[in-house]
């Protein structure tokens, strides 16, 4: 099994439970193929660096898991069909992974913080530019 992480962006005008439904569908696909979900992080509404399908904001969801290549192909197919998903990115973290060890590591490590929102800084730079 390989370890992957997937980030996908959902349209901002979508209700929370619908986002959960999309996430649930993806995780069910992974687990259906014998994969293991390590963590799901909801980064919340973030400003996009550029417009995607005419949206300037999006909900980021991060999933860290171990799975087989076929399940990655399947969830990416689902994302492509789903209009609510703006964009997705899957990165392979390692070619082989021992789920027990990863779980142990994650338990020992500090809970990973949601990446800092850049909005505060951006606003500062915006005002600087205007001056």
């Amino acid at each position, binding site marked *: 099994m390989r370890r992957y992480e997937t*980030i996908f*962006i959902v349209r901002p005008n979508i209700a929370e439970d619908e986002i959960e439904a999309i996430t649930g569908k993806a995780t069910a696909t992974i687990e259906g193929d014998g994969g293991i979900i390590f963590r799901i992080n909801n980064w919340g509404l973030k*400003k*996009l*660096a*550029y*417009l*995607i399908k005419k949206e*300037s904001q*999006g909900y980021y969801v*991060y999933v860290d898991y171990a799975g087989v290549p076929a399940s990655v192909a399947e969830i990416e197919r689902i994302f492509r069909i789903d209009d609510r998903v703006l*964009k*997705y*990115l899957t*990165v392979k973290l390692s070619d082989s992974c021992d789920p027990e060890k990863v779980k142990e590591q994650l338990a020992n490590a500090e809970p990973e913080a949601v*990446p*800092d929102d*850049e909005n505060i800084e*951006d606003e500062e*730079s*915006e005002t600087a*530019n205007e001056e």
Partner: protein
Amino acid sequence: MAPKKRIFPRQKVCRFCADKSLVIDYKEVRTLRNFVTERGKIIPQRIYGNCARHQRKLTDAIKKARQIALMPYSGPTQL
């Protein structure tokens, strides 16, 4: 003929080699921000003296961050 003036540039050290706690991760935009211009262009390694290995990892990370809209392909972040 005046003797050639030799200017020795200050030895720059790769920031990531010097500080092992700095991790290059495409999800950590805060670190990556330091290595792009205001317009979002990747700054060449000769400016900050990054080593080849870390510069390579850095560019890969920035390009991944661009794909998932954490960083702009061009232009400042505000729209």
